[in-house]
């Protein structure tokens, strides 16, 4: 229970998170960390529509998430923290000690990115950032849905997009 899942997913709140992870884990709260969303009522309302009434959705900037993380960790309900990109998670890890596991849940195709898994496409810079996170002591894996096996970082970075 509590806040155990730290996920990078460019789709943020979507079916895989709310249903795919939400139901088997019994998620009762999600912390969405994104500086732009934290400043936009419209964006927040958009994401609120996507979560069931029994699930709380909290919006934070990196700064406010780092401040509030102890409180989220003290919540006895099952929770998940989301960022939409690697740099945001990287900044959060730097500001909030104790995040020791990060899951790459989905980073999709954009120009400049190379396919590593079906659901993970990375630029050279993003790969470097993931390596740096791992070097700092964070266990980085990729996993889209709960039924899949976590893919270790080395395997992720050597993938060709077919896994």
């Amino acid at each position, binding site marked *: 229970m509590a806040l155990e899942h730290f996920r990078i997913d*460019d789709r*943020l709140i979507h*079916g895989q998170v709310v249903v795919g992870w939400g139901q088997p884990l019994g998620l009762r709260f999600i912390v969405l960390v994104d500086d732009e969303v934290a400043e936009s009522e419209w964006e927040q309302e958009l994401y609120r529509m*996507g*979560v069931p009434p029994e699930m709380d959705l909290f919006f934070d900037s990196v700064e406010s998430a780092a401040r509030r993380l102890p409180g989220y960790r003290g919540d006895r309900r099952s929770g998940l923290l989301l960022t939409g990109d690697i740099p945001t998670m990287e900044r959060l890890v730097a500001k909030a000690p104790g995040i020791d596991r990060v899951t790459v849940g989905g980073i*999709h195709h954009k120009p400049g990115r190379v396919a590593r898994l079906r659901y993970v496409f990375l630029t050279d810079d993003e790969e470097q950032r993931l390596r740096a996170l791992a070097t700092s002591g964070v266990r980085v894996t990729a996993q889209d849905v709960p039924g899949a096996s976590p893919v270790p970082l080395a395997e992720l970075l050597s993938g060709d997009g077919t896994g």
Partner: protein
Amino acid sequence: MTSNKRAVVAGHADYAAGMVSAVAQIAGLGEMFVPVSNTGLAPEAIEAALREQLQASGARVIFTDLPAGSATLAARRVARTDPGLTVVTGASLPALLSWACGCDLPVAVAKGKDSIVLLEGAGGP
């Protein structure tokens, strides 16, 4: 039946293609729908695909699968800058068929909702 009305159907994996295929098989009206899959696409790319298909088809309606799905979020972002566009979430085959066969959207949505029936035991009463 001929009609100029068109809709985009968008969702996870092959949901949209499956829906369009089913409408075509049942009513011969598959050409009224343009399928868009979210597979492998970043949020911005889903939004771009929707805009492209709306423009190409002239559709003014987007049917999506999950209310919380990435296709729905992208559709709502498109609708924010296109107030004449309508988004229907949780779209089912009965709803699509009803709309394709001439029902107004509220009626088609109601038919979609009414078609969900729990048949317990040996098939219900």
